[in-house]
């Protein structure tokens, strides 16, 4: 619970998760990233006072696959079965802006030079936004780890931060990845099992129901929020075309209309900038928030699954012990096995409870922060729009 309080006190104006880079003993950030074709190279920068590290400050280049490797090794570590492993950052996805850029290239002939330039600028901004988002999401992943009392001490984490050579040797080879795929398959079958396993603890029973339901709802909300954002972007694009065409008409006009049209063209240009910002703010504060917590809830569900597994193992070990007692064979092994299972289960339950409670607190705080910020930004943009529009109306009326 202490970790939650710390996070509460150190809220900062950043990202969907509250700012995690608070512990001076281990500060991580990604100050720089390079985009080559589709491959993004992140520069992971660490500043630490811990003696476990060789140097107090250092940077290493890392690829997305290295992050995935780190995440997967953490997931596979038995000791961390009772923890919510921070969700792996999603792969950098430049598909959308790239496709739009392609379409723009095709349609270049149909628009004026000015229009084309503006559209291109919009796309470049979009590209940049995707880029910034992916940097951020990778950064948060590392910061979640660094601020976790147990995970921050993980050996592999340290290697990730420190090892100044290419990590690809340590990364999963194709076979292992395939193995991972099967593991996921089995897991979803087990998810059905979970509902079958009798829950002994009310807390976990409630959490299970809640998380399963919440996950599907938040997944839906994320998708819908994404669609909203896209519509805003489409409107911003329309404004570009309208502004450009108004400009062309005014150039050709010799009546009193000329000035009106110029003002109008200018207005639409400004409006589209605001609309673009509305879209990107909504994306960041709402869509990204929902998306991030969707993944986080998946990670929490994984924890529940592991615990349910442990419970099943425990119950099986009980049955095995009973059988052994009946047959009067291998009783000490069965007893020991049963004890181990019980211990594991208890440990998972205890840490699981802590993690899940902390998680809820974190989630509520993050939602609050982002919803407030989003509302404030919406108000700001709408006020801006009113000023722009009113200004233009007054100009038109006065002529």
């Amino acid at each position, binding site marked *: 619970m202490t970790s939650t309080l710390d996070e509460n006190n150190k809220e900062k104006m950043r990202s969907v998760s509250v700012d995690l880079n608070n512990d001076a003993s281990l500060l991580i950030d990604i100050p720089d990233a390079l985009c080559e074709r589709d491959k993004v190279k992140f520069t992971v920068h660490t500043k630490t006072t811990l003696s476990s590290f060789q140097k107090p400050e250092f940077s290493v280049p890392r690829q997305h696959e290295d992050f995935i490797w780190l995440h997967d090794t953490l997931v596979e570590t038995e000791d961390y079965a009772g923890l919510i492993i921070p969700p792996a950052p999603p792969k950098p996805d430049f598909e959308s802006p790239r496709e739009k850029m392609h379409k723009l290239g095709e349609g270049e002939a149909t628009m004026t030079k000015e229009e084309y330039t503006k559209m291109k600028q919009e796309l470049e901004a979009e590209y940049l936004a995707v880029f910034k988002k992916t940097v951020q999401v990778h950064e948060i992943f590392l910061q979640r780890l660094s601020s976790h009392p147990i995970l921050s001490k993980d050996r592999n984490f340290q290697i990730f931060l420190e090892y100044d050579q290419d990590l690809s040797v340590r990364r999963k080879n194709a076979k292992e990845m395939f193995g991972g795929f099967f593991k996921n398959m089995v897991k979803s079958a087990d998810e059905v099992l979970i509902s079958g396993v009798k829950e002994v603890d009310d807390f976990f029973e*409630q959490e299970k129901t*809640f998380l399963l*339901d*919440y996950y599907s*709802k*938040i997944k*839906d*909300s994320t998708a*819908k*929020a994404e*669609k*909203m954002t*896209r*519509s*805003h972007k*489409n*409107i911003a694009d*329309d*404004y570009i*075309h*309208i502004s450009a*065409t*108004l400009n*062309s*008409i005014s150039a*050709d006009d*010799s*009546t*009193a*209309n000329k000035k*009106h049209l110029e003002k*109008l063209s200018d*207005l639409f240009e400004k409006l589209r900038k605001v609309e673009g910002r509305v879209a990107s703010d909504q994306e960041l504060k709402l869509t990204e928030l929902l998306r991030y917590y969707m993944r986080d809830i998946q990670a929490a569900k994984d924890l529940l699954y592991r615990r349910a597994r442990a419970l099943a193992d425990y119950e099986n070990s009980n049955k095995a012990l009973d059988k052994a007692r009946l047959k009067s064979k291998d009783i000490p092994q069965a007893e020991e096995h049963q004890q181990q299972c019980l211990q594991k289960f208890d440990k998972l339950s205890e840490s699981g409870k802590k993690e899940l409670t902390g998680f*809820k607190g974190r*989630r*509520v705080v993050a*939602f*609050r922060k982002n*919803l*407030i910020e989003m*509302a*404030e930004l*919406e*108000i700001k943009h*709408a*006020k801006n*729009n*009113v000023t722009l*529009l*009113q200004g*233009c*109306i007054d100009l*038109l*009326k006065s*002529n």
Partner: protein
Amino acid sequence: MADTARDPPPEQTDFEELEDGEDLFPEPAATLESEPASLPAEDISTNSNGPKQDSLFDDDPEDLFAEATEEVSLDSPERDVLLSDGPSPAITPITPPTSVITPCIGHAHDDMFTHSSFDEIEEEEGGDSFDMHISVSDPEKVGDGMNAYMAYKVTTKTSMSLFKRNEFSVKRRFSDFLGLHSKLASKYLHIGYIVPPAPEKSIVGMTKVKVGKEDQSSNEFVEKRRSALERYLMRTVKHPVLLKDPDVLQFLESSDLPRAVSTQALSSAGLLRMVNKAADAVNKMTIKMNESDAWFEEKQQHFENLDVQLRKLHASVESLVCHRKELSVNTAQFAKSAAMLGNSEDHTALSRALSQLAEVEEKIDQLHQDQANADFYLFSELLGDYVRLITAVKGVFDHRMKTWQKWQDSQMLLQKKREAEAKLQFTNKPDKLQQAKDEIKELEGKVQQGERDFEQISKTIRKEVSRFEKERVKDFKTIIIKYLESLVQTQQQLIKYWEAFLPEAKAIS
């Protein structure tokens, strides 16, 4: 871009040919056979009340040309200069039989009609300020099945002395409007008046209504049409000459109107229109006019460019309407999803905030829907109207070309006849010679008439264009201001909604 929420456009492109034909070209019979005889100054045997053109005719052609060049320098419509330019009522070789003109309008304003100068009539118009408001309302379905139609109530409110009463209404159906337009077009287009085009026909849209589908898209269609009809009438009556046309007055005032059958798309008249439109298009390509007047050349180019740009703008705004509608739908969907999420949330305060968020988004989706309507009815329809108007303007320029062509043809024929006559001089055929001389005399008259017609249409077009440009500026300004104000309203509502939500978000603990 296309989304399930988007309504399929009611108009089929297949039928646009007909619709345009409707707008651009008058009844085929009238155009093809129309001689300058249709000009009232010369022949007022037709019952139609044409404009008063008389004063502008001058015996001395050179004077007309002098007028023409003077007008070139005018950029903005400075009517006063035009008026002082114009020949005073003293020069009226062809006195308009005003007695013929006036009786059609039983309650004629005598002052207006005794002046034979068209220019002065316009001045008078300026004095008696245009005070008229027409509304088209109460669409009502009459009849059943495929013979059903929509009847609209046309209400006129005016203080102008042109009308018997200050307020009156009649019931009209769509084909009545088309009929009115086709009559006006046949009377005025070929002499250079820009007759506002009527709203487009829509077989698909109307069929839905006839079949009785009471859904949103057919309601939208009826509303779109109602609004278009209203704008059409207002534009028509704003034209000082058209306003006084007896057909217009009859349309507005009389409770019974003979049905205009030839406006039907699939009638023989409709097919004839299509054929003629194609023929005209071919002719246009073959007429090579020697444009001696830079003003016309410049204006023609200007309208060509404007046409292209307006179409482009219209397309962009249509896209905007579509995207805004999509935004509305997506917002509504998100609202529902957020509500479900709120229900699922087990932290009480957050749950309440999420439900509030859902409510806000629901209100916002309605806001976007309303804005999309404003986008459409104010901005998009304005542009659509002007695209069609520009087409009418271009049509008028084309008529001028045809008039020129006719003049040139008569001239060439005259030349030929003169050559033939010269040859006949050397033969001993006195009666043939006399015949030739007679023909030449007739042709000379025709050539003169042709020239006069050409000058007339050129002069009319100049006036019309400057009036049009003036109207356009005013129209755009008024409607754009209205549109911007709608945008302001939306934004102000947004502020209200989000400001109401903010404390809810802050209350999460």
